[in-house]
């Protein structure tokens, strides 16, 4: 069992003092959710769990715990973020021990909540079912009907570059057409695209959760907070909101692992991944590059060659 193996590995790492702490997932107070856990003693490892609600990208904690040796539990997408951060020299190779878990794809808690009437008070996963229970109801739901959009399209579920793999590699295949959100967006006319983008961004409350949860957003000073020069005002004017969302997405070019953490974090449920998906597609098509797959290949926007084709110059 995956959970048991994660605990064994964590215990061994902590006992041997190979790491200062393990960052993994644990149960907390709400159903359909887990919480990031920080385990420092071998006795604490029994709290580590693994299920379809381990939705956070823990690679983000690399920045916060950069003075420690960390054992990190990673899914495929998280591992890709780690590799991307490694290429950006955010940590030294011996600072991290990756406990890679081939991912079963994560469940979208909001979708589940909307599928039933009444508040879900308990959720239990069993094989391919999620049993949800509330006041006066208990319903089994088919797990695969409730996957996060970013998980449905994932073809890198088995972590690359992990120090140890928990479980066997899984079959890499998308459940739907690749990048449907981006493809759907591409089909729209420029006016329709703008309207869609405008409508989504208009709900933004500038909490910057999409930025904070993203492993790739680690600038000491983000452009939105710079006061000299001031690139952007702080209010909810449409142009400021749109500017923020556009620049946030653009800064991910060739760096986004498509984990979907930004969209999961947004309290206003703004759709965000169609933008990053589109950028990922472009980078794949133009440079044949995918984020975090190969630790020896620099992202296209971090490198250049003297004989670059420069087809974009017309």
């Amino acid at each position, binding site marked *: 069992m995956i959970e048991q193996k994660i605990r064994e590995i964590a215990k061994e790492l902590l006992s041997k003092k190979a790491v200062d702490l393990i960052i993994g997932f644990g149960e907390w107070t709400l159903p359909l959710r887990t919480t*990031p856990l920080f385990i420092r003693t071998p006795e604490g490892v029994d709290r580590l769990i693994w299920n379809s609600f381990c939705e956070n990208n823990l690679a*983000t904690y690399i920045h916060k715990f950069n003075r420690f040796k960390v054992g990190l539990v990673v899914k495929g997408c998280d591992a890709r973020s780690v590799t991307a951060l490694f290429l950006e020299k955010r940590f030294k190779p011996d600072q991290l021990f990756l406990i890679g878990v081939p991912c079963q794809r994560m469940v979208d808690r909001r979708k589940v909540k909307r599928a039933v009437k009444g508040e879900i008070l308990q959720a239990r996963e069993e094989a391919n079912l999620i049993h949800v229970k509330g006041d006066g109801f208990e319903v089994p739901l088919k797990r695969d009907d409730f996957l996060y959009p970013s998980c449905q399209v994932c073809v890198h579920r088995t972590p690359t570059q992990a120090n140890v793999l928990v479980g066997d590699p899984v079959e890499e295949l998308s459940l739907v057409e690749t990048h449907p959100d981006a493809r759907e967006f591409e089909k729209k006319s420029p006016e329709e695209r703008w309207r869609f983008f405008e409508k989504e961004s208009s709900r933004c409350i500038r*909490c910057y*959760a999409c930025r904070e*949860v993203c492993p790739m957003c680690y600038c000491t000073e983000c452009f939105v907070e710079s006061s000299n020069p001031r690139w952007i005002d702080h209010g909810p004017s449409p142009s400021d909101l749109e500017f923020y969302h556009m620049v946030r997405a653009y800064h991910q070019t060739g760096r986004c692992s498509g984990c979907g953490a930004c969209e999961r974090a947004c309290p206003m449920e703004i759709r965000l991944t169609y933008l990053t998906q589109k950028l990922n597609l472009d980078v794949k098509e133009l440079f044949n590059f995918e984020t975090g797959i190969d630790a020896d290949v620099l992202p296209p926007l971090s490198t250049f060659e003297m004989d670059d084709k420069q087809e974009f110059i017309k």
Partner: protein
Amino acid sequence: MKLKLEKKDLENFLQSLMDEYDLYAPVQLAEGVSVFKKIDRPGEVNLTQLHTQKPAKEVFFPQSERMFRYEKVGTQNQMVSVEEGKRERILLGARPCDIEAISIIEKVFVGKEYTDVYFLEKRKKTTIIGLGCNSPLSTCFCSSAGGDPFLRAGSDLFFVDLGEAYFVELLTEKGMAFHKNQFFKEADPKDLVLVKELEDRAFEKVGFSIPVDGIEKRLDLMGESSFWDRIHEKCMGCRICTYLCPTCHCFDIMDEGDPQRGQRVRHWDSCLSSLYSLETSGHNPRSTCRERTRQRLMHKFNYFPKNFHRVACVGCGRCILYCPVHFDIRQAIIWTSPKRPKTFGERMT
């Protein structure tokens, strides 16, 4: 006086309000996402969601608010004050926790030493129609934070959803002004019985207790506790919990524009952002998430009660529901208490 409003009359009732008042009520922006907004047409109002994402504080303390404009005329700078709307306002469909929170913010904005005219003007002009919570969520802990799902205090009128109709109570002078409203009918005795039943059921749901009582004293002794070393670990430093909090009221003031013309605006600010405490010198007294998380909890449960004799938390549960990493403020409260119940697990993080 016990009245009721049939739901089939709701739209007409809302229209009649809008003829006379600026009406603010919950509006759904996307499936399951709503905020309080000035209503343009009655059909927009959506009273079905228990919590709006952004709380009702926004009606009195907008996320961004222009304080004045300035303009250069010749060599002189001229300041132009902002005209508040002349119309009276109605806030409809706010839940008891949000209404309680407005009175908490009011303690700060309408104090003995100074008065915030922007807040006060809006507050004076507003009649509040509260809406009882028939089905509190499992994350609601209003009853532990000085409120309850049917708390009337702060409301001028109070609605209870009876299914086909709203039970209506007129509670204050402002509320009594509605006693001749053409859409309000006299309630039946059985409606009263139903209200009582709904109340009982809701009270049962929030019948547990989170140890908020005495937290101020407990935190007095915890300034440098190792508690703070652990509790912040998972926090990624976004602003969701503060922006969605009905009692958080920090703001930042900015001048926007150029030397010729512009405006001074205040925007919501959040103690969880590093910029919040960054000083001009470059020094940041709250340099890490540990200090910022401590500030958030200390302000709510220690500094605020010291100044205003009440915790700055109404138990609405938004910060629990929407935290991307599932920080649970109930758990933090419990962890300050010597009587930690086992239900939430024995360890802190």
